[in-house]
């Protein structure tokens, strides 16, 4: 049933969304580098994460104040409890990325994170977990997964 809704998206929205997402991804290595430098100064990955999150929270509050968007907090209270906990797994990302960058450098750290990320994402889509529309692994998705893993292999081999 869920699949039905997915088919009616207008295709036009697809490409802008793709470009936007590629740009968003480009911010991550920058964040790796900046947070890594911060952790060197503070001598603590948890404090680095705390300050990083505090700065992000302030930025979001300002943006939300400037925008005309009015979040529907009543509807959000009726959403499943787990959907509020994205920050818990998100903080695992911030701490993990800092530890990795310090130990391995930005290039290898980025590569390793990508592997875990793509496998998790395609797996979540396949299982339809966490309230997602179910998108099963088909030949195209399996091929993409193989390409991503090959790209990572090359990258690690080049870095070694």
């Amino acid at each position, binding site marked *: 049933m869920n*699949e*039905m809704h*997915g*088919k009616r998206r207008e*295709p036009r929205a*697809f490409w802008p*969304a*793709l470009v*936007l*997402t*590629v740009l968003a*991804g*480009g*911010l991550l*290595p920058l964040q790796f*580098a*900046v*947070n890594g430098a*911060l952790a060197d*100064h503070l*001598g*603590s990955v948890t*404090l680095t994460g*705390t*300050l*990083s999150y505090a*700065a*992000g*929270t302030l*930025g*979001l509050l300002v943006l*939300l104040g400037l925008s005309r*968007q009015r979040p529907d907090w009543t*509807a*959000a209270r009726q959403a499943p409890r787990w*959907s509020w906990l*994205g*920050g818990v*797994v*998100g*903080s*695992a*990302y911030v701490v*993990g*990325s800092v*530890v990795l960058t310090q130990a391995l450098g930005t290039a290898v750290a*980025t590569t390793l*994170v*990508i592997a*875990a990320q*793509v496998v998790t*994402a395609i797996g*979540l*889509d396949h299982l339809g977990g*966490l309230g*997602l529309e179910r998108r099963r692994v088909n030949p195209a*998705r399996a091929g993409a997964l193989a*390409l991503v893993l090959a*790209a990572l292999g*090359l990258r690690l081999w080049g870095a070694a």
Partner: protein
Amino acid sequence: MNLGLLLGTLGAGIGLAAGLAFNVRLARALGTPLAATLVNFVVGGVLLALLWLAGVGREGPAHLPPLWMLTGGLLGATYVTLNLIGAARLGVGVGTVAATLGQLLVALALPALGWLGQAQRLPSAAEGLSALLLLAAVALLAGDRQRAAGRPR
């Protein structure tokens, strides 16, 4: 590679991809991706502050950092918001791989340009080829998604 690094990798990768799925669900209820990202940051920040107060992950002496180093959180907030807007249209799978492509391109460009204090270095053939493979993967997933969107069922 030791166990700590392995756990760090898994935590970072799963955190990124699964965090996106959590946020997609919350953004749907709230009606705005900005507020969902805000919830995400408050929860993550409070958790890390508690861990820090409990003495987890404290090592070495602390020095006061220059202000620009705090921009990492702004970059993170921008990433989460944009990725969330994109994933609502693309699905978590395509959304993650597309973000991955941008990630890899900038990770190549940073040393090539010598920005943010990195030693200047041109990408090797292996690194260039690996970016091309990733581009092919994004194209494959994007094509698959377009076909699925066009096919009435």
